[in-house]
């Protein structure tokens, strides 16, 4: 009896990604990207960000359309709650980066995914941002991501997907390592 080898269908074009990796390893200049967002204050703590263009592969690039994101603070902060808080955007960024990585690694390893769900929790002591206690940092004291994954793979292979996704994740790196940030006023 022979078993036909099925190819996982996770909707990730791994061949294209591998071809891009091959091409960029011979052309490091094309691998230099700039991601951009603009942000405009509306009222109170509400602001709106727009993301449309970015730079990469040696030229200006565009999303299919401009995406806008409202950020605000919830009512318990005496705000209007027009959008999620900026720190929640950080959680969104982390989870979506890791999940994209899980899908890409699963495709590369020919693992069929049926469902991938992540819950992200960030612990924060707001005595930091309120300036109550200078020993408390402004940012998260810790972030926990919990995955529920249903896939054609055993537990160890699923754990390996999640571990490899962290290893290659840009947002995971941004959060776990320091980054120089320069803010200037025109």
């Amino acid at each position, binding site marked *: 009896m022979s078993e036909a080898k099925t190819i996982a269908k996770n909707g990730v074009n791994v061949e294209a990604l591998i071809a891009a990796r091959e091409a960029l390893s011979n052309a490091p200049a094309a691998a230099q990207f700039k991601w951009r967002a603009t942000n405009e204050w509306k009222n109170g703590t509400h602001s709106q960000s727009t993301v449309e263009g970015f730079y990469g592969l040696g030229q200006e690039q565009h999303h299919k359309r401009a995406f806008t994101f409202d950020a605000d603070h919830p009512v318990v902060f005496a705000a209007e709650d027009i959008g999620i808080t900026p720190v929640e955007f950080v959680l969104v960024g982390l989870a979506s980066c890791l999940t994209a990585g899980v899908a890409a690694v699963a495709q590369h390893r020919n693992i069929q995914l049926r469902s991938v769900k992540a819950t992200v929790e960030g612990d924060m002591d707001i005595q930091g941002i309120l300036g109550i206690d200078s020993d408390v940092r402004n940012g998260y004291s*810790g972030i926990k991501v919990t995955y529920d994954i249903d896939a054609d793979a055993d537990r*160890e292979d699923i754990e390996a997907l999640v*571990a490899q996704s962290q290893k290659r994740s840009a947002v995971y790196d941004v959060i776990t*390592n*320091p980054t120089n940030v320069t803010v200037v006023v025109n």
Partner: protein
Amino acid sequence: MSRCLTDRAIDHVVLERGEVAHSWRTERWDSLRLLTPNWQSRLPGFAYRGDDPDGYRTLPEVIDFITAYAQMIAAPVRTRTTVTSVRRTDDGYRVCTDRGDWLCRTVVLASGACNIADIPRFADRVPRAIAQLTAQQYRRPDQLADGGVLVVGASSSGTQIAHEVHKSGRPVTLSIGEHIRAPRVYRGKDLEWWMDAAGVLDERYDAIDDIARARRVPSLQLAGTPDRSTLDLNALTAMGVKLIGRLAGFTEDGKAQFAGSLHNMCALSDLKMGRLLDLIDDWARANGLDGKVEPASRPPPTRVEAAPPLGMDFTKDRVKTIIWATGYRPDHSWLEVPVFDGKGVIRHDGGIVCSPGMYLMGMQFLRRRKSALIDGAGDDARELSAHMSSYLDHRAAH
């Protein structure tokens, strides 16, 4: 290689900047033992016949072993001869040394993979009051000031140095990035025995999916401990060594910052070890060893505290020394032949360098997984010397 060239009657000399086994004499710490058991140091025409096949050679024993082998094969070694440049000529190479020049048709680069300690660029931001040394410069704990020590890097060198320094009474913090966990003994046999028997060490460079990545994998976290104990992160934690994330940089005021990725670094390593042990178990079953060796088991997962520290204040934490065990790179600065890629790495196909008649030896996964081991030199030398022989014949025919 010299032995294989002699066997093929290829006239050659071996140039050595110091004495035979120079780097073992001058660039290793005192207590170092070979990571591989005695039986495994097989060289062309040499196999271990002593009464301790499972032991690990001490540093003086390694030096004696290499020196004795050089004498046994009557290697034409020119000691105290430092190569200053290698250049292409019309029909071969000109090798300049501090004792005159050599003209040759072929040249073998066998100067090693571990000449220069590879330390991160941000090392220049370490506060002046903190002493820094590399794993290459480390000899013994009494070289170090009293007080805490930050060992950066948790591969084979880093874990062994952390162990020895901590035992000396200097509290050690070990900064951990990517590493490869491995038990010294598995199912009653040395891990190297399993990897050798199951063919893992013989895996060829041209049968590997991503050879560039395989060549960058850090060394197995193995130590040649006399009691064959495993020196993994759990063993170090049990001694009191403190585990901390990968060193990410230094703040303006000289505090160290560590990545928040320690949990994943350990998870990746535990999973990778699990895959190696699965492979060994499969091989043992297929080869009828189940029941004849100890049953399969898995070491407990690496223990990591819930929230490892992300910073270090050298003054407050009383840390006086940093030891960089962050890997090594080769020194080919004397090689004036355009064979390097954009990152300064020699382009080669399994040791056959992209310049006619030039060969490379002793690099990580050069032709096989074992290429950087003493035990790997023989097979590589046999194949590369065969290539060299046909290259020389081909040239002679024209």
